[in-house]
């Protein structure tokens, strides 16, 4: 960054405030998870991996982890085709009532999560599918669908429509054009969207709180319920699992599409 010393001091000073705010809880949780003591306090009492061991012994934890994976995979699997096709349709085709369609597809984002969650709880209760796991995955797909559509739409916007015309001109039938030209071109958006959907579902808590019961509880809901009773270090160990998964997602995103893609101007 160019500019006077004063400007750099102010900007970087504020950036440091943000950096500390953003990173402090993560770093603290990692530190706390290695304590040897019974409770979390500072400075931690000794270093051990005992809380990771105790966590792995816990059947309820392993079951909740498996369910969370299942729900996130359902959410991602449903949203990949649905979101990709919807994004291509809204950007590439002339459709009547375009604005109405866009407002409608944004509803999951504009309706507050607490309202969406309770609405679907009522609906799923009426059609008697509450208490099963797959509706949770579908519900998470619904509430996060705008993120999938956004990611793909950004990629669709970036491709030149002439390349599709060129493919058709060279005799490629519609499906072949779609599979060999359009789809590869929007892949960065599809990958970003898919990763985002998985991570959002893996972390989602409020809608899951309404749609799960003690037999189908997912990990974020279980953490929330435990936080409200006693704060034990095994929760820190679970949190480190979340941090590790977030780290993997960041590295994957960087390798596959590059984090710099988010710095493009609009």
């Amino acid at each position, binding site marked *: 960054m160019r500019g006077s010393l004063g400007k750099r001091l102010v900007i970087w000073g504020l950036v440091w405030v943000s950096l500390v705010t953003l990173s402090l809880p993560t770093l603290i949780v990692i530190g706390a998870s290695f304590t040897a003591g019974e409770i979390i306090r500072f400075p931690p009492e000794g270093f051990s991996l005992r809380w990771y061991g105790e966590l792995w012994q816990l059947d309820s934890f392993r079951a909740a982890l498996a369910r969370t994976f299942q729900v996130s995979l359902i959410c991602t699997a449903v949203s990949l085709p649905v979101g990709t096709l919807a994004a291509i349709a809204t950007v590439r085709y002339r459709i009547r009532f375009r604005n109405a369609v866009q407002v409608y597809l944004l509803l999951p984002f504009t309706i507050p999560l607490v309202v969406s969650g309770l609405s679907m709880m009522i609906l799923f209760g009426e059609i008697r599918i509450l208490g099963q796991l797959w509706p949770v995955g579908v519900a998470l797909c619904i509430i996060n669908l705008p993120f999938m559509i956004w990611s793909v739409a950004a990629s669709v916007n970036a491709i030149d429509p002439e390349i599709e015309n060129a493919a058709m001109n060279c005799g490629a039938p519609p499906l072949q054009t779609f599979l060999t030209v359009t789809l590869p071109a929007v892949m960065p958006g599809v990958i970003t969207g898919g990763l985002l959907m998985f991570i959002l579902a893996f*972390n989602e808590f409020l809608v899951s709180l309404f749609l799960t019961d003690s037999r189908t509880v997912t990990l974020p809901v279980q953490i929330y319920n435990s936080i409200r009773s006693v704060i034990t270090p095994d929760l820190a160990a679970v949190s480190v699992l979340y941090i590790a998964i977030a780290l993997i997602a960041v590295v994957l995103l960087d390798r596959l599409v590059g984090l710099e893609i988010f*710095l493009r101007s609009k």
Partner: protein
Amino acid sequence: MKYPLSWRLLDGLEAAAAVLWPARLRRLTAWGLLAPALVLVGVLVIGLGYMLEYSLHELDLATYRLTEAYSLTNYQTILDRPVYARVLGRTLLGAVLVTAIAVALAFPYAYALVRTRSAALRKALLVALFLPFFIGQVVRAYGWLIVLGREGLVNSALAGMGLPTVDLLFTYPAVIFGLVQYMLPFAILLLVPALAAIPEDMELASESLGARWISTFRHVVIPMAKPGLIGASVVVFTLTLTDFAMPEILGGGTSDFIASAIYDSFFQISNPGLGAALSMVLVTLGSLIVAGVFLVAGTGTLGVRGAK
């Protein structure tokens, strides 16, 4: 002549597609592509219909079920009880504070991200931004419990310096702080595209005409970043307005937001009608505020471009 298998496969698929979706349906292709998404969002819309229906029925205290007759009693109850006005005021104030602080912190971060010359520094800033973005609210709130708790980091540091400890947790400022941390990545990511669109020459021109950097920011950078500022503010404001986890966990019941009041109506006092009415108030309030901002200031970076 022998064609590769993949060609024959593709031709087969093409023929199947031509049968399933003949050319005369071509005009409807867009709707065909949209159909699955429209159906999925439809599930939510039907659920909202139920919610509206619930809100129009009063709770019968004899049977603890909603009465058959339609009435606006639940909405009247919300107006009559001062507790809901207080919760609403607290939520709105919180949303304004969090938006102001988060956008003020996000702006220099996004600016540094766009303007820094060092690729390594840019990568570091991006990772520090995305890592918390990918960690859910519950885990992050848990981190703050450890930092702000009675035996937490801050109090241990205070005690170590011989100072009296303070109760930081379960206060309104703790909730605001937690929410700012949660919203910061959203704000930065929505500001970045707008800042990236400002050519650096613009700032150079301003400075070569004698403007100090603060004047350049006030008269050039901030006005040009307006679409991003609107987008970031609207998203942060609405997400804060409807948040549940941070006020619950870091407020510990002392600083409930509207979402908590809705939750309590359903699960604590078992009055789904009242909860549904509160939900409708929240949806309406949020939509009105967003529509108001869009009318006055435009949709900013949130507008979606489409085919011309």
